[in-house]
């Protein structure tokens, strides 16, 4: 019996090795089929694990952009882009390995990703060391682009959004008391909360309650009950849409009728699907509005739905834009040299994508309009576009 077990185990390992080799050679032969003229770009994001919803959306968005570019004849006179997609499970050590693999083994010229801030922090270091540019679609942590000259992002950074919302609450809405409910296991949420509180107080408002929750929480009643007791005029919830829907529902069930405010994490059809009427009248900052009638936006939305039979969340258009940005930069660099491509990225100006027109500040953060959206009659509606 024992011997049989050992044999089975060994066979299993061997079979796997064969499978691996197969995968390896399959990868090789695929490369051979594309007749040389190929630009390799890496994609890193969580396709499994807790953050997979963003990773998969981002991947889909990037793929749509690359397909469009290739269908239109590629870049640099006939070079086709090959996107090498890697799953980092949202894990930092996986990211380190993947960065090394993409750069050393696969010789990519640039990388789209990582999607979340933690892994991007790790990737930034290696990108700088090896001088290969990375463009993160959605990593909003304030510091990441200052970690290395080779990190660019197409989304806003955390405190920028918090600042805009704080201003909006105090000036546009004219409110005096606010409560904050944030995810303190998430740096994105913490960053927005800090910036909101700072701005709101500078403009004369008072933060009457500051409550925290942890990733994966389902029950927000305890925090909301505390908030209800303070009776604030607005509640700022810098979290992701599925948490937001929960919070809205539970808040309304507790009889809280304050105005809810949020960041780009709110931007998903799922917010309305999940929260229903509870979402009415909330405001949030975001990258673009699906209601935007511009051809670029509508074209993207149609393509996404066609290909994936689902509504994209905000990660998809941002990754789409990241891919556009890279392709544009490679075109302008004129050759497949990572350093030149990076320079071209920083020099980008007026490139128009789904989420707006891109130029970059000295820290390679995008200078583009912030959209403030609301929910009206079960639909997102554009409130304002704010320029810094």
């Amino acid at each position: 019996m024992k011997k049989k077990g050992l044999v089975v185990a060994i066979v299993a390992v061997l079979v796997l090795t064969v499978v691996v080799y197969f995968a390896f050679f399959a990868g090789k032969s695929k490369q051979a089929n594309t007749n040389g003229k190929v630009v390799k770009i890496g994609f890193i994001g969580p396709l499994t694990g807790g953050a997979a919803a963003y990773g998969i959306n981002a991947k889909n968005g990037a793929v749509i952009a690359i397909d469009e570019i290739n269908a239109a004849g590629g870049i640099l006179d006939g070079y086709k882009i090959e996107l090498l997609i890697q799953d980092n499970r949202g894990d930092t050590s996986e990211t380190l390995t993947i960065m090394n693999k993409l750069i050393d083994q696969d010789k990519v010229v640039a990388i789209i990703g990582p999607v979340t801030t933690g892994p991007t922090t790790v990737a930034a270091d290696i990108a700088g060391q090896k001088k290969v540019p990375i463009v993160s679609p959605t990593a909003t942590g304030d510091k990441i682009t200052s970690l290395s000259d080779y990190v660019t992002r197409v989304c806003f950074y955390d405190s920028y959004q918090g600042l805009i919302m704080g201003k909006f609450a105090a000036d546009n809405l004219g409110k005096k008391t606010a409560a904050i409910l944030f995810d303190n296991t998430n740096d994105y949420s913490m960053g927005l909360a800090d910036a909101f509180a700072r701005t709101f107080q500078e403009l004369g408002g008072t933060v009457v309650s500051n409550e925290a929750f942890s990733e994966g929480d389902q029950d927000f009643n305890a925090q909301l009950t505390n908030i209800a007791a303070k009776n604030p005029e607005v509640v700022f919830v810098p979290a992701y849409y599925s948490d937001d829907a929960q919070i809205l529902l539970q808040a309304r069930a507790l009889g809280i009728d304050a105005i809810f405010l949020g960041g780009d994490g709110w931007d998903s059809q799922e917010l309305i699907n999940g929260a229903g009427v509870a979402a009415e009248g909330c405001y949030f900052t975001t990258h673009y509005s699906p209601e935007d009638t511009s051809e670029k936006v509508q074209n993207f939305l149609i393509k996404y739905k066609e290909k994936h039979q689902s509504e994209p969340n905000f990660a998809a258009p941002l990754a789409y834009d990241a891919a556009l940005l890279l392709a544009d930069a490679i075109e302008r660099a004129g050759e497949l040299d990572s350093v030149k491509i990076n320079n071209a990225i920083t020099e980008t100006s007026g490139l128009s994508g789904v989420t707006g027109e891109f130029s970059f500040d000295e820290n390679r953060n995008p200078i583009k309009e912030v959209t403030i959206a609301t929910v009206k009659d079960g639909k997102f509606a554009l409130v304002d576009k704010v320029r810094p």
Partner: protein
Amino acid sequence: MGLFVQQIVNGLALGSIYALIALGYTMVYGIIRLINFAHGDIYMIGAFVGYFALTTFNLPFGVSLVLAMLIPAILGMLIERVAYRPLRKSPSIAVLITAIGVSLLIENLAILWFSPDPRPFPQIFPNMPLDFFGIKISIPQIIVFLTSVALMIALNFLVQKTKIGKAMRAVSQDKEAASLMGIDTDRIISLTFAIGSALAGAAGVMVGVIYPRIQPLMGVMPGLKAFVSAVLGGIGSIPGAMLGGLIMGLTESLVTALISSTWRDAIAFGLLIVILLVKPSGILGKSTREKV
């Protein structure tokens, strides 16, 4: 004071869900001494079955709840048959690793099939607060609490009064003696998994009702917390699991309200360790002395 009572109400609703999941843990542990790590994932499957029954097939709530108990029950039996029964005589740690493997497998298959995106659970009951002397209790909270209590009473009846229940208790006392008494222990173990999984499935639907969001990894933390609840109450003891679940829910709610949610998990686990040190058998468990 009103605030405090309000937090207790919140804690009871959360606690009743922990209690439902904890029951499955406690029953399985009581009968084969296995921490069934996949139990939290069965709860997730229950939530998804409920979701599809309510949305895709437009079934009424009662039917959906029954389905969400039935399918996890079958899944629970299947897991026991395929993954745990062949290891009945292996060291417990090997079975534990298998359980972890099953848990990972279910989670990752669910991500593949259902996509990792969180889904909003359909709102069946009006999301409005009822006011009891200043204490606000929402209709979903009431539904969840009452359903959970009803299921627990039913389970207690099953275990205490029926023949099957007696057989289950006998097997958990002494497997060999029970089989000598003519009890088909494999069948009873299978049945225990079925009942425990059905309760977890029900808990999944309850969670959908009260916190209407479901996703493939939703079972991980509640699973862990429910197990802690089971240990807290005295593992192997059914009233213990109920008590443990309620204590857990109340503690979480009060810690979040009075201290901070960030310390909540630390305090929940701290409580567990204190209980284990003071009374390792849990609040309602019976202590056993090793014979020398």
